[in-house]
């Protein structure tokens, strides 16, 4: 675990509200450069809200979110994106009024060093064959690939992936797992939200467990087998 030095992302005492309802109650965790870290937790634990809060997509948040020491709380999401963070949302967010190519090219390049379009087609060959189709005409798996592929172009180094395997066939889940391992090898840092910790165990270095808007535990991937009982209790599976 590359634990030396300043974490790439440091979240401290993060609180988030949707209107009157207080959803995150002081979330703390770190992600170091080059790591793949997961947020595990039951439905409604606040995983998606944590990603949205990092990205600046919620209207009211407090606490601290630092990227390489820069405080992001209070910044609008477009400025946060420009620092090199990109999100792949839970609902995938493929645009129906754009074709596949337009969807892929939509996110602006925020930094140099993103993957080229041909490298993305190497990862996801299906996309290259359907460039003119309406984005939402793709299958669920293809839409997920498009949602991941489009943020690889932007040069963002920290990727926030929200349940990329949800509802997909096992063969596609495997393909996405292979993609995540390959992205890690290329130096991307990934914060992954998962419900399926068997999948998470195949890609991640570390797992944070969320409950009721807090991080309540952390398990290194090597210790996962030994911690099964604890995890089963947290996740109720």
């Amino acid at each position, binding site marked *: 675990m590359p634990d030396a030095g300043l974490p790439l992302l440091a979240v401290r005492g993060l609180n988030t509200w949707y209107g009157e309802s207080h959803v995150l109650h002081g979330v703390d965790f770190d992600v170091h450069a080059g790591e793949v870290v997961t947020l595990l937790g039951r439905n409604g634990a606040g995983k998606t809200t944590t990603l949205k809060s990092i*990205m*600046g*997509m919620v209207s009211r948040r407090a606490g601290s979110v630092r990227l390489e020491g820069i405080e992001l709380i209070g910044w*609008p*999401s*477009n400025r*946060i*994106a*420009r620092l090199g963070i*990109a*999100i792949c*949302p839970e609902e995938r*967010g493929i*645009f*129906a*009024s*754009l074709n596949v190519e*337009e969807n892929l*090219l*939509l*996110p*602006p390049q*925020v930094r140099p060093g993103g993957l080229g379009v041909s490298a993305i087609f190497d990862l996801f060959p299906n996309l290259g064959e359907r460039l003119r189709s309406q984005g939402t005409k793709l299958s669920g798996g293809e839409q997920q690939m498009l949602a991941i592929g489009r*943020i690889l172009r*932007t040069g963002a180094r920290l990727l926030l992936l929200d349940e990329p395997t949800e509802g997909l066939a096992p063969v596609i889940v495997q393909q996405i797992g292979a993609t995540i391992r390959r992205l890690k090898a290329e130096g991307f840092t990934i914060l992954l939200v998962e419900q399926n910790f068997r999948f998470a165990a195949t890609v991640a270095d570390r797992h944070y467990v969320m409950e009721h808007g807090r991080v309540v535990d952390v398990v290194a991937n090597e210790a996962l087998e030994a911690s099964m009982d604890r995890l089963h209790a947290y996740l109720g599976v």
Partner: protein
Amino acid sequence: MMGAFVAWYLLQYLGLGYWPALLVAPIVIGLFGVALERLLLKRLYGLDHLYGLLLTFGLALIIQGLFRNRFGSSGLPYAIPSQLAGGHNLGFMFLPNYRGWVIVFSLAVCLGTWYVIERTKLGSYLRAATENPALVQAFGVNVPRMITLTYGFGVALAALAGVLAAPIYQVNPLMGADLIIVVFAVVVIGGMGSIMGSIVTGFLLGIVEGLTKVFYPEASNTVIFVVMALVLLVRPAGLFGRAP
């Protein structure tokens, strides 16, 4: 309406004629639109669309009232530019040159707008932000600024229409209000959110209305709404609308 008045002011006080007005009036009114969006409309985005509708409708009434107070409602003449005076006999009808120019120029502007929205990168931002502004902004696009500029551009287009209409309808505080219901019908028939739908419908309805005026003048004011009712019965999303 304000576009037409700016054209009239430019001529009256600065001696700037039709051609410069075609450029200056949209810019002036577009900036006015930008200010309006920044100062007022922006505050309503979190709320139901109805509030925005009420605010803009109220503002329109106030502005219209101010102009009426100053100019009355009889209308000020605005001459056709000399280059476009006269007309041509097309055999089956007489087409004044100025009307021919308005048709060609507005078609060009419409197609240009369509091209930008449907075929360019900027257009893909606009379409995507219409669907999911929060996500487009999270990709690094300054969506609030884009909305302001788009609003300003829309207002500028309306001003352009005002200048184009000035020599035909005279400059009149009510010239915009008279149109708004028809514009509403055009958008609904064409299909909400479809530029091509609005363009095609706008020109088709113009022809339908014109023909009705010739053959059955009593119905020329209602024909548009009859068409609207029929279209909505058959295609609730409009002619070019995507079914919701």
